[in-house]
């Protein structure tokens, strides 16, 4: 198309086209760049905690006490035995998946649903549970107690 032909098209029409094209391209580029920029900003929670979680502060745990915390998408139990050792177990009962609790009077882990009992290493010792509770590793890091999944070999 020659320049003279182009000039015959009304300037208004040309402006509209330029506006549409320019505006469309710019705004669509913005619509792509905006999410990417937001994506690059690290979220406030740096970890989903699937592998490692701060279960508690050292100061909050006393001998023969326990704390329920979230580990990944399931509840877990942090214990401190009478001798001062930390243990971390899954809090999901292996019988019918109720949430277990620590019983200070028994020094055992108890499931209220059908009276199942586990010892403090997670072994099922009485009642319906067919398998021991899953165990996790516990480290103390500074003033925090960190629970992590056992590493795959």
């Amino acid at each position, binding site marked *: 198309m020659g320049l003279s032909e182009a000039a015959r098209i009304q300037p208004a029409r040309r402006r509209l086209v330029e506006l549409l094209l320019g505006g469309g391209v710019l705004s669509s580029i913005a619509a792509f760049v905006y999410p990417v920029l937001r994506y690059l900003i690290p*979220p406030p929670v740096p*970890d989903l905690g*699937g592998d490692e979680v701060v279960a508690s502060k050292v100061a909050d745990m006393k001998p023969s006490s326990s704390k329920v915390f979230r580990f990944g998408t399931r509840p877990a139990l942090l214990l401190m035995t009478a001798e001062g050792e930390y243990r971390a177990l899954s809090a999901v009962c292996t019988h019918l998946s109720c949430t277990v609790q620590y019983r200070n009077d028994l020094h055992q882990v108890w499931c209220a649903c059908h009276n199942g009992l586990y010892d403090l290493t997670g072994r099922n010792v009485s009642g319906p549970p067919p398998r021991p509770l899953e165990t996790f590793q516990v480290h103390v890091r500074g003033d925090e107690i960190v629970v992590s999944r056992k590493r795959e070999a």
Partner: protein
Amino acid sequence: MSLFTGVQAWLDERFHWAELIGPLKKKTVPIHKLSYWYFLGGITLFLFFIQVGTGILLLLYYRPGANEAFESVQYIMTRVQFGWLIRSIHSWAANLMIFTAFAHMFSVIFLRAYRKPRELTWLSGMILLFLAMGFGFSGYLLPWNTLAFFATKVGTEITGRVPVIGHSMMVFLRGGEEVTGATLTRFFGFHVAVLPGLTALFVLIHLGLVQYFGMSVPPGLESRWKASPGEARQMKFFPNFLLRELMAWYIALGVLGALAAILPWELGTKADPFAAAPAGIRPEWYFMFMFQTLKEIPAKLWFMDGEVVGILVFGFAGFLWLLLPFFDRLGRGRGRRLIMGAGLFALSYIIALTIYGYMAK
């Protein structure tokens, strides 16, 4: 002097810019009824760029390793701002890219663009298709969910059935005898380093060859245009065809965005190597036709194992497929008909077996 021409002058003084882009400015695209098919290659390239882009973004948050992979993808989907968008676009574009790659290949067959002198273009293109499927296979495992784990198990198992070298191939792929975290690490290495490097190389070769030979025209039209050159219609690549390609790319982008927002890619459940395989394990759709074929073959064919026969047949067919252009000049017109027939058969077979594979469960 506008900014645009100013920059051009600056480049020209140093790199003889005008000379360099001269031939590109003269590049034309033949226009005929079937020209729309020319877009497919460009769309595949565009989707590859999308993959590289979203892939790099995903790399900022993804963690390879059986303990963390699934959780990191979950993190991307739920915590990272627009992580769901980047991840879903990556998964959808992967499938779309393989689809357009296949469509591009079949259009090349039916438009007979593989003919001399473009044999190497065909070869490099086929290699790119295999690399794309390798991308798909390796990438599928990376979220480390149940479906992916078992699909990889089955897929590498089949590789292991190849005679003589099968077992070594399987061990190489798996990083061991079984599918484990080592497999994940290995697939990650393939997916983000080995395959991108090879693909970049072959894309350059492929594009270079396409530039060198120009766009192919269907043979009937070609001879007509040779006879009366006045009839030949060409369109300038810059800016006319490029603008149209841009339209196509924009539409593809819109489709991708819609898919990502309305049909987000599933996370699944974390893989447990000790659990039993769930029912209905199957590979991604682009492997389905081969998978279903192997399932249909009876366990024993004469004295040989049915599955091994299937694998060998596919291997041999793939080999012949690579050499397709060289059959074109067999006999008079016979080679051509053979190739068209093979192309038609392959297309129908792939479609039929893929549909059958999904229905027969």
